[in-house]
């Protein structure tokens, strides 16, 4: 990870105290971000989290209620979209149906009154990079979904800008194409080195593409950090539950000295990455950080269902009536009703305060 710490002066995109309301409904609450040159930022969240809204504000497609946006150190809060030096790729591709691929790519450049040969040069380059040379003279209607999305990316590419905005660009594609294009976008980023802001609800896209992820909920940034940090040290229960599949398991209990007390079990907290205090707490353990063996000692749970995935399997358990999932590279079949004894990797677990929901 090259860009873990960024100085403000070097920022490519800076969002300061962004607020947005529609009438009485506040959609964004004091959103601030500093994004360095060449970073790949993913805005992640469920529907209604405000991720696309932020992107539209950056693009200038929505007027902010308060706050400022700087691109390359320039205050663009009230600039027109075209003047902000951005390229944007949309979920529905948004290609102009009555223009050819070439026309689509050239449209913005013609608007900017670029010389003809420059336009041709840029289109050639983009077409080469995206391998769309063969259908430059077709209309969008004659292209497949994947091809259309390449053209849409190309339209951002030819603008020759520092900041690319992606609004769920892969959501309309099928799983296989999505995986392919994901890799291509990653390669593109490495090749061009532009700053990219990428909106998605898909955590795999987020984890694989992002240099940093901003996880949003109800228009508030929950955590803005590297994928690794978000995965390892989620700042709160929401983030912990959102990232990871299956979701993190949560056990309600209390901390007593060096131990987490859960039902009648005592789980030693040695090696925990943080500073737990005595009192009520929730222990969060990821399915992949839980070990097991058949047996009835310690924390035990009954097998309810096993999902086989070839290389690995997910076992759904009932732990004192509560649901618990664990993931194991071992795909051996374990019969329903088997009692398992569980062990938790405390060094990779998280403890949360039940009131504030924050990580301890």
């Amino acid at each position, binding site marked *: 990870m090259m860009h873990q710490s960024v100085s403000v002066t070097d920022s490519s995109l800076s969002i300061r105290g962004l607020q947005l309301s*529609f*009438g009485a*409904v506040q*959609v964004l609450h004091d959103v601030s971000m500093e994004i360095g040159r060449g970073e790949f930022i993913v805005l992640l969240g469920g529907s209604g989290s405000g991720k696309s809204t932020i992107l539209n504000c950056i693009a200038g497609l929505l*007027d902010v209620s308060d706050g*400022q946006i700087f691109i390359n150190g320039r*205050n663009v*809060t*009230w*600039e*027109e979209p075209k003047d902000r030096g951005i390229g944007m790729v949309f979920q529905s591709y948004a290609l102009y149906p009555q223009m050819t691929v070439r026309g689509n790519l050239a449209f913005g450049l013609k608007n900017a009154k670029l010389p003809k040969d420059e336009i041709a040069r840029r289109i050639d380059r983009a077409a080469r990079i995206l391998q769309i040379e063969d259908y430059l003279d077709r209309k969008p209607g004659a292209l497949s979904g994947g091809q259309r999305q390449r053209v849409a990316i190309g339209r951002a590419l030819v603008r020759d800008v520092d900041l690319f905005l992606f609004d769920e660009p892969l959501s309309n594609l099928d799983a296989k194409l999505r995986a392919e294009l994901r890799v291509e976008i990653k390669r593109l980023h490495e090749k061009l080195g532009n700053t990219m802001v990428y909106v998605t609800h898909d955590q795999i896209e987020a984890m694989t593409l992002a240099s940093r992820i901003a996880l949003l909920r109800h228009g508030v940034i929950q955590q803005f950090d590297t994928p690794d940090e978000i995965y390892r040290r989620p700042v709160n229960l929401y983030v912990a539950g959102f990232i990871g599949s299956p979701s993190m398991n949560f056990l309600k209990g209390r901390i007593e000295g060096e131990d987490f007390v859960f039902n009648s079990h005592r789980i030693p907290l040695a090696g925990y990455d943080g500073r737990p205090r005595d009192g009520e707490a929730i222990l969060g353990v990821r399915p992949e950080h839980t070990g097991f063996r058949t047996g009835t000692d310690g924390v035990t749970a009954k097998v309810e269902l096993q999902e086989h995935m070839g290389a690995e399997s997910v076992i759904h358990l009932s732990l004192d009536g509560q649901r618990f999932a664990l993931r194991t590279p071992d795909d051996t079949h374990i019969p329903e009703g088997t009692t398992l004894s569980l062990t938790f990797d405390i060094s990779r677990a998280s403890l949360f305060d039940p009131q504030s929901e924050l990580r301890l």
Partner: protein
Amino acid sequence: MAKTSASGRPSRLFRNLNAKIAAIPMILTACVVFVGFSAWTILHSFTKSRLLPKLDFVGTAQYERLWASDKWLISIQNLVLFGICMLVFSFVIGFLLACLLDQKIRFEGMFRTILLYPFALSFVVTGVIWQWILNPDFGVQSIIRGMGWESFTFDPLNNGRIVMFGVVIAALWQGTGFVMVLLLAGLRGIDDEIWKASRVDGIPAWKTYLLVIVPMLRPVFVTTLVIVTAGIVKVYDLVVAQTGGGPGISSEVPAKYVYDQMFLNQNLGQGFAASTMMLLTVAIIIIPWAYLEFGGRKRG
């Protein structure tokens, strides 16, 4: 375009300036014509303007006379009757026809064109032709009597009690096709999977139409309702061409009352009072609805 001031935030007025400039014709029409003219009309309804509009106030005298006028009361009754019949029949028949045309039938285009062509004709033409067909001396009645059924009587245009139904027949002939097309278009917009689902569930077609499709067509019904109702309230030419308000004054309608008062009676004030009442009624019905339908909705 945006004027970025030192503080960063441009004046509200200049945001989307071009959009606002482009909307000027609409804003002018709304303010000057629809609001302004209405205000002008309401103002003059309190005057005793006769041939020319004059600000010669007489209080509510015009309204007192209006509500004491048999002609006006009959007009309103007729409009209510006409409106209910038109709405019920044009929607029911239009919807049934749309459903029939939606059955993957052959010659759909032909049938559609036949049902829709009267819409291209003016109300005057419609009125004249139906006046003819319904004329007891050489229209339907005389034909059927000529075929041997001597006692057959069908003379709506000559019978004050049922004359409005004669007008409804003509209006339906002209307008149902349009309703049908609107609803047909709506039906075509419904996702095929709804049909699949209802067939898997074993729901009979008529029930699917009634319980599933009709609620899904709400937006089309709304648009159609606006267009049809606007036509009903304004009905004038048809009545003039078909019955002239007769026999006697039994097929008078409010728009005709307004027109006659203004231009035949040369009593503008009275005409304005009547149109103010029409305006008021429309506003009472429309404003809450328009607010729900068009107001207060935001992009999210």
